[in-house]
């Protein structure tokens, strides 16, 4: 019995909690990508950099707050700085839309042209971020590091394996739940949210019904900026902030959005968790779990791992390919908000 509990604790510590955390980060990112896709109808390659930009502003504000001694112990100060980060990022995305995307939208450019334009935005933002904060690692986490330490857990339960819960993990998961709930409430129950869904569903019909397209586009960018800032900051808190990493994050985020059904918010969230858990499940070394569950005298030489840990990001893509072949519309058939 203890063996089973030990095995479960091990899985919980290294698989379930990290999976939920990473999945929440991906889900928030994918939600942003999906909104742009649903309303503006293109794949936004600049989303990773938007996340990095939001996180960067939050970091700068956090440093400012820390230097004047404001903190919200035991929570990280960055949570206090996020609203400012969102505000600045909203201004930035609206400016970019005004000076870059609007022109192409008015000319009803091909989605591929939008995609290339978003690559230009990606370059621009990438340079801007590196120019302001530099390409290096930035650590801005403060507050209590652990809510539950592995050692305390062992003492409490008397098990051999420990379960630890980092503050960043708890903050990430809780924030994601709140944001996602708020988002769905907005999309399903407010007038603006409904008009966005209508616009995404059928643009011409929405225009005929008197929905103001400029307003829909503006609201979309505001939501995207807010989601990107939150996702970027949470990721930075949990791992660390490094501009280059956010570009690499683009691939699992796209994979999440497509696996769930691009343009579909429920799908984006489900996709985020599907990708996160499959990455972890396929690259987790099950050696200790098998030893706990197997007979007493069992010995194992291999790590019992499906794929090397280095292939983590590759997993998201393999799933993407499988979904594209078998069900190109994704798990939850997408295309509308």
């Amino acid at each position, binding site marked *: 019995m203890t063996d089973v509990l030990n095995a479960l604790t091990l899985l919980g510590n290294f698989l379930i909690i990290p999976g939920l955390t990473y999945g929440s980060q991906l889900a928030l990112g994918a939600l942003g990508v999906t909104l742009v896709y649903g309303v503006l109808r*293109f*794949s936004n390659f600049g989303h990773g950099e938007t996340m990095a930009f939001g996180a960067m502003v939050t970091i700068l504000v956090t440093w400012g707050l820390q230097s004047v001694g404001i903190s919200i112990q035991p929570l990280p100060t960055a949570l206090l700085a996020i609203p400012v980060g969102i505000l600045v990022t909203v201004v930035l995305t609206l400016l970019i839309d005004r000076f*870059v995307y609007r*022109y*192409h939208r008015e000319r009803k450019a091909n*989605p*591929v*042209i939008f*995609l*290339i*334009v978003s*690559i*230009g*935005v*990606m*370059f*621009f*933002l*990438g*340079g*801007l971020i*590196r*120019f*302001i904060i*530099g*390409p290096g690692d930035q650590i801005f986490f403060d507050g209590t590091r652990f809510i539950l330490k592995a050692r305390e857990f062992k003492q409490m339960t008397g098990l051999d394996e420990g379960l630890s819960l980092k503050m960043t993990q708890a903050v990430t998961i809780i924030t994601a739940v709140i944001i996602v709930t708020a988002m769905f409430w907005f999309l399903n129950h407010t007038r603006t949210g409904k008009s966005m869904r209508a616009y995404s569903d059928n643009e011409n019909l929405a225009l005929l019904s008197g929905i103001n397209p400029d307003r829909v586009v503006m609201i979309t960018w505001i939501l995207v900026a807010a989601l990107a800032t939150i996702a970027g900051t949470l990721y930075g808190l949990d791992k660390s902030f490094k501009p280059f990493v956010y*570009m*690499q994050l*683009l*691939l699992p985020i*796209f*994979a999440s959005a*497509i696996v769930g059904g691009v343009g579909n918010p429920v799908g984006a969230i489900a996709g985020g968790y599907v990708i996160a858990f499959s990455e972890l499940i396929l690259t987790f070394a099950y050696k200790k779990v098998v030893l706990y569950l197997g007979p007493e005298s069992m010995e194992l030489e*291999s790590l019992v791992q499906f794929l*090397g840990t*280095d*292939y983590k*990001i*590759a997993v*998201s*893509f*393999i799933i*993407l*390919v499988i979904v*594209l*072949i*078998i069900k*190109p519309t994704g798990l939850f058939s997408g295309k509308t908000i």
Partner: protein
Amino acid sequence: MSAFYQQYRNQILFSVMAGLLVLVAVIQSLSVSLTILNLCLISAIMALGVNIQWGYAGLFNVGVMGFAALGGLAGVLISMPPVSEAWQAGGFGILLGLLITVGTVIASLFAWSHIQHLKKQRYWIIAGIIISGYALLRIFFDPGVDAIEAIDPSVTGYLGGLGLPILVAWPVGALFAAGVAFVIGKIALGLRSDYLAIATLGISEIIIFFIKNEEWLTRGVKNVNGLPRPVPYEIDLQQAQWFQDWAMAVGMPVDDASAVFVKICYALLFIAVIGILLWFSETALKSPWGRMMRAIRDNETAAAAMGKDVTWQHLRVFVLGSAVIGLAGAMLTTLDGQFTPVGYNPLRFTFLIWVMVIIGGSGNNWGAVLGGFFIWFFWIEAEPIGLWLIDTLTSGMDPQSVVRAHLLEGAAHMRLMTVGIILLLTLRYAPEGLIPEKKRL
């Protein structure tokens, strides 16, 4: 004035480019200028490859990095001497592993085509075949890999190559890229255009992951150094009597002269390749095939209605373009003399090449070449120029000032921002690029 520009636009633009390179030769040094020229030539070939896919057929391939890396891998596998101890230690396991992989693929393809009537169950059957094949593979493959990687890991620790001349690697690199492109194309070309973009982006990342991690084949992050050269070594030149006389005649120190001579040799090789490619591309574009490709690009439905097999043509042009990129990748490793998997990042190897094509003029081969030259030149020279610019602009400030130090430090990243702005401006004000596609009636 404008009419004159219209008529001689290509000549003017290419002369400007040549002028810039001469300027670098004068201000910095001839050697720097030639280094830039060589990389410009390789970039131009990559841009040609992308232009074949995007300009001719409208296929959006963001996996340039992966194809270039495959070409580079060919450089290692063809030219490095084989490591016979490694082959003895683990060669059998590796070969068996390859056989199992091929067997699994054939078995699942065969099963797929014969159990179409089973609907849902067929997915499970295929999954079963693949998983058991994979388990079998790991049983034989892993010991082989461990044995190989254990052999003198600081020097070899991999299988080595075939020990052939490195020029052979160029067409082989193209073949590698073409083979992978065929598989990707089969999977992704039937889908919408931005799915192709995301699929190629993903596959290129996987190729890099593979190259970084499969050390038995590529040495991974330990790099492969000392690839053989198609041109003479500086040290041999310096000792040759005829070369010393020649250096004396042009009035250069023997060291500098040998470096310049080697770079010129490379440049001539690359110019020959680019000449052949341009001739082929131009001929293809003028041929009935080129006409059909443009018809498909401009209106797929109409072309399909005229009886053209759109998917098949897309696959062909995708494979062709990727082969050109693979060729350029092999040339790049040849020029570097080493294979460094860590050096492949999507910004430099995928998106920058795209910027070259868009700015040069998509659909026009000369435009792609010119874009390759201009953007690479700018990418290299932006750093010294940016540094100089900020240094001059802030020279009035206190030398101890933190702001000035930060600005100088950030100057290196200005080029990312500038490339982004140039791309956005081009898309808005000159979407056809520097040399637009020829209007044909």
